[in-house]
């Protein structure tokens, strides 16, 4: 895995040769990101128009007001504090959930008895939404960090397990047979064939889990927290600080977008080489 990062330019270069027949690099970049920029600009423009002419209420502030408020909250460090609080929880739970989920998924995908044994857990628990677990989490772990991290782990782990196991199931049997007849042990096949072959599936599972994590953290912070973007939303409602509510919403949207882009990018980068089938 450590070498994957350094290898990507080569894989990109290989792909570039195929894609290179299209428009030039500058035009392609403009095509990729110009569309995005335009899309975002139109989103904010529509919002501006809607709040000025359509709704025209203090309950629906225009983006200009929201950005002004955001700048103020960035200036005094309040926004950063909430963002950091939420992201820290997401990161801790997400990393822990993935680190637990990946090996469990690999084991479930590789060994039938393990799958039979563990499937009842995953098939039962994944239908209990993490939001429903908030009450239990607070009873068990209090309103501190532990309950939030537990919830993020909970929302991450099943989807990562499921995707990882599906990835293992998709591995071409000849990849495993080749390793066997080259003298690899079961453990080595697990580490050197099953794990790398499943990378695209693992990343997809993590990407879905990241989206879940955002939902879960806000819900958890709404109910029980001293800081975080969910707490900011709650306070906004409590004290009728509509601008702050919108700042929090925009921050959530942007953070989620950035996190998802990161995953899309890494899936794209690895998909060229890591594949269960080819």
């Amino acid at each position, binding site marked *: 895995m450590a070498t994957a990062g350094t290898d990507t330019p*080569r894989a990109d270069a290989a792909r570039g040769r195929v894609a290179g027949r299209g428009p030039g690099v500058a035009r392609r970049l403009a095509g990729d990101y110009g569309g995005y920029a335009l899309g975002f600009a139109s989103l904010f423009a529509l919002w501006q128009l809607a709040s000025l002419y359509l709704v025209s209420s203090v309950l629906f502030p225009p983006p200009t007001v929201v950005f002004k408020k955001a700048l103020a909250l960035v200036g005094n460090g309040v926004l950063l504090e909430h963002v950091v609080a939420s992201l820290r929880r997401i990161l801790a739970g997400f990393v822990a959930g993935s680190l637990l989920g990946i090996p469990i998924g690999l084991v479930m995908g590789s060994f039938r008895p393990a799958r039979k044994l563990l499937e009842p857990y995953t098939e039962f628990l994944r239908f209990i939404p993490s939001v429903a677990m908030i009450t239990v989490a607070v009873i068990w772990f209090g309103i501190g960090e532990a309950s939030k991290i537990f919830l993020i782990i909970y929302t991450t782990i099943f989807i990562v397990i499921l995707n990882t196991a599906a990835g293992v199931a998709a591995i071409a049997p000849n990849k495993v047979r080749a390793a066997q*007849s080259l003298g690899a042990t079961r453990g080595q096949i697990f580490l050197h064939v099953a794990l790398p072959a499943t990378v695209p599936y693992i990343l997809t599972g993590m990407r879905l889990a990241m989206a879940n994590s955002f939902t879960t953290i806000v819900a958890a912070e709404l109910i029980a927290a001293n800081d975080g973007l969910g707490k900011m939303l709650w306070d906004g409602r409590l004290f009728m600080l509509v601008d702050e509510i919108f700042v929090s919403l925009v921050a959530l949207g942007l953070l989620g977008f950035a996190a998802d882009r990161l995953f899309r990018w890494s899936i794209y980068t690895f998909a060229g080489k890591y594949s269960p089938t080819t």
Partner: protein
Amino acid sequence: MPLVTFDDVAKTYRSMQGDDYGAVEHFSVDIEAGEFFCLLGPSGCGKTTVLKMLAGFEAPSAGQILMDGEAVGGASRDRAVVFQGDDSLYGWLTALENVEFGLRMRRVPKAERRERAMRYLELVGLDGQGRKYPAELSGGMKQRIQIARVLANEPKMLLMDEPFAALDAQTRALMQEELARIWRTTRTTVLFITHDIDEAVTLGSRIGVMRAGPRSQVKGLIDVELNGARDRTDDAFMRCYRQVHAMIRDEVAAAGRRG
């Protein structure tokens, strides 16, 4: 003592409808060390089943398979397999790293395994391509990686399951020549599965012709009295071709009727 003995081997598969299908039955043959043994048969005659059992991927339903006098039980690095398609290659490893795979699993020191992998890449004509990934190489080159990968692991024998079937005619002819050359230098025992008479006569030192399935077995054995590089227009080559053809003709027709 032969290197490999198939002793009255049978393999029965159960279909999803619950019917039994006998792929091979009373299958017996000996393979001597140093032979290039071509197992030739019409499609669906159980050639690949025979290879899978010797590889240890599947267990026989009856009879036994011996290698060096010991029963085959599971895959082993003694019997390396070259697969028909390219899905056995590891797309996340370079050509060189694919060739090194077996040595790395056996914890051969890095410098030594690199040196050995380079040597075998050169043997299969892939020198200078070691840093490329399989996806960047052509079908013929990918089969070369597979061949280098098994040779570098120095197995007691090679099992090849129609390794050139998916290649275009020109590349296939070239690969056959290369494989013949490699075999003449290494003299590794080979079990080569094919449905192509020309390929069998070009490569084999002995040819086993299989009956049409189901419940297939070896119909007859033919020694190929040709040495060194072979010429398809040579009289001896054509005699051998005709001999094999006469033996397999009825089986192909039978397979066609059943298929």
